[in-house]
């Protein structure tokens, strides 16, 4: 299977910088997602790899060769578009056979391969149907089968599920991943849905403003965000402002509470103002009986809102440290009501300090 490397890709549209020195490497058989908000350049990067756009500078290297000199129809990459890409005048089978037909394969070979692939995506029964007779999810499966029929070196997917219903999306993303693992094909996937990216990728490249903010496994991205952007884009983060008491001991005072930052690379001098981040699931709550004071390690707060999210309830709090969000199990949340006084503690090991933006893209040790 192939390796893909994007080196220093740069692309501007007039005054807008779509890609700002993008570097990314995808290993053989790996599933990498480019995750980011709209406008971050992820689709532009993908289309450059596919051959539908060209960068102002930079290289795209597949298996050691720069492919930018090749036109799109010679690159042998499979691409699944967001929607509407099936040829309307052909049945599902004919669509899947199309790439083989262009490569001048015989009638029987094509039919056999088309059947194989449609079975792989679970649509063998729909072979003779036209795109307009298929649901959105079914169309995307056919599109996937069609792109795989040509045995591409690389599979490219441009937000293939965003046009589909939520339930279909979850189902289909599992299937895409299953098929990808089965075939071992190197895959580059673009999405703005973090749940999607985190659940099916080997590695995720979080992008913003044309560059990769962080590249890592889903776990690394989620629990070890390196910049404020990544921390905020992936999951929710509480932000705390504080003043450094001791740089060596990494002690920070936020309001009436003293915290110790676990990150050994925390380097600030006493007196510096810093921002600390912690996720809502790492904020603990304890109901306070009337008039009671919080136990040591806890501080005061009041419930300001309750948002039911299913298994978890997000509790809005006004605390001695400012406004905070805490995620508690919904069963526990039933005991909470507006204005209820609560005691709050932070799981110190999950406290992190982040730069507001990294000047160098971080590539963690493999």
């Amino acid at each position, binding site marked *: 299977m192939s390796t893909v490397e994007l080196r220093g890709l740069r692309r501007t549209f007039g005054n807008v910088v779509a890609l700002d020195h993008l570097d990314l490497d995808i290993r053989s058989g790996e599933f990498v997602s480019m995750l980011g908000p709209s406008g971050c350049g992820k689709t532009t990067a993908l289309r450059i790899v*596919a*051959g*539908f756009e060209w960068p102002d500078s930079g290289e795209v290297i597949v298996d050691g060769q720069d492919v930018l000199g090749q*036109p*799109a*129809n*010679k690159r*042998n*990459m*499979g*691409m699944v*578009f*967001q*929607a*509407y*890409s*099936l*040829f*309307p*005048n*052909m049945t599902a089978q004919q669509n899947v056979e*199309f*790439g083989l*037909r*262009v*490569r001048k394969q015989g009638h029987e070979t094509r039919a056999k391969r088309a059947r194989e692939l449609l079975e792989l995506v679970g649509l063998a029964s729909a072979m003779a149907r036209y795109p*307009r007779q298929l649901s959105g999810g079914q169309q995307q499966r056919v*599109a996937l089968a*069609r*792109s795989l029929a*040509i045995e591409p070196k690389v599979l490219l997917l441009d937000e293939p599920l965003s046009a589909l219903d939520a339930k279909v999306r979850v189902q289909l993303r599992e299937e895409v991943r299953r098929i990808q693992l089965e075939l071992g094909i190197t895959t580059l996937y673009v999405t703005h849905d973090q749940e999607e990216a985190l659940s099916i990728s080997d590695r995720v490249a979080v992008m913003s403003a044309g560059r990769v903010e962080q590249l890592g496994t889903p776990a690394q991205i989620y629990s070890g965000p390196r910049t404020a952007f990544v921390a905020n884009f992936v999951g929710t983060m509480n932000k705390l402002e504080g003043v450094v008491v001791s740089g060596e001991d990494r002690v920070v005072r936020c309001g009436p509470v003293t915290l110790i930052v676990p990150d050994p690379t925390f380097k600030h001098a006493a007196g510096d103002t810093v921002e600390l981040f912690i996720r809502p699931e790492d904020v603990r709550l304890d109901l306070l009986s009337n008039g009671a004071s919080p136990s040591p390690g806890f501080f005061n707060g009041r419930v*300001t*809102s*309750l*948002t*039911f999210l299913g298994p978890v309830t997000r509790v*809005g709090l*006004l605390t001695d440290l400012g*406004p905070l969000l805490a995620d508690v199990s919904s069963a526990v949340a039933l005991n909470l009501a*507006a*204005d209820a006084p609560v005691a709050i503690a932070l799981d110190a090991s999950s406290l992190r300090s982040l730069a507001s933006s990294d000047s160098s893209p971080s590539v963690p040790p493999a």
Partner: protein
Amino acid sequence: MAFAPLAEIGEAGLQPDVLTGAAPPKRTRTRRWAFLGFLPFLAFITIFLLIPTGDLIVGAFRTTTGSFTFSNIADIFHAPYPSAFEFSIELSAVSALWGGILGFVVANGVLHHGVPRWIRPAYLSFSGMAANFAGIPLAFAFTATLGNLGVVTILLKHLGLNIYPSFSLQGLLGASLVYLFFQFPLMILLMIPVIEGLRKEWREAAANLGAGSFGFWRYVGIPVITPSLLGLMLLLFGNAFSAYATAYALGISNLVTIQIGQFINGNNVFNPQDAYALAFGMIVIIIITIVLYTLLQRRTSRWLK
């Protein structure tokens, strides 16, 4: 900070009717009153379109004394009318076919992504102008171009090519060229939305799967567009078939429309009821054209959805 109540999951959705207690609207009575608003238009159409049309259809089957007859219709099949129908159909078909093909080709050129920006507005506005230019001025413009002393005629003479006397602006070739002047820009205008309806994703998917530009057109582009292309050519046919002023100014007489005109002018001494029959014949031909066009359009809209 405001207190946000726990979301009420599973509660029945708000039903406005239930909340306001409003009675269900009296549909039938409102509809009848509403229909009154349609009457002015209906009246106008009836007076100025439906009645005259009905009149002429009825007249096609009536003698001058008022009795029912097929003889008017029969008259159409006697000289000089069949040749007029023949020429009308020929001229319309030729100008529609060539107008359609050229219109399609040029529309593609106008829409090509690499083309300078001013091309599209220039060609589109000129096409709009040309499509409307039909009539008297057009005929004289072509006389000035390809007539006996026309600019192009003289130019060709200098190059050694004497197109007269075999060429004539009243012949099939000459008249087709004149008709082409309004047919082919019309096709450009009509074709542009159709070509734009070819989704970008199809082209890109085709390229991604290994097909070049030719492969795309051969397997996807042309098959999807063909019903539209044919349908629009039918439209062009109807347009040319109904033409009167241009042909009149060119001095062509062997055309159904001109023949009808001669009846009204009083230049025709044959059975006056024949004008009705001719007009009726025209309506029949045009209806056939439109029915075919509608069928083809339905085919296209299925694909271009």
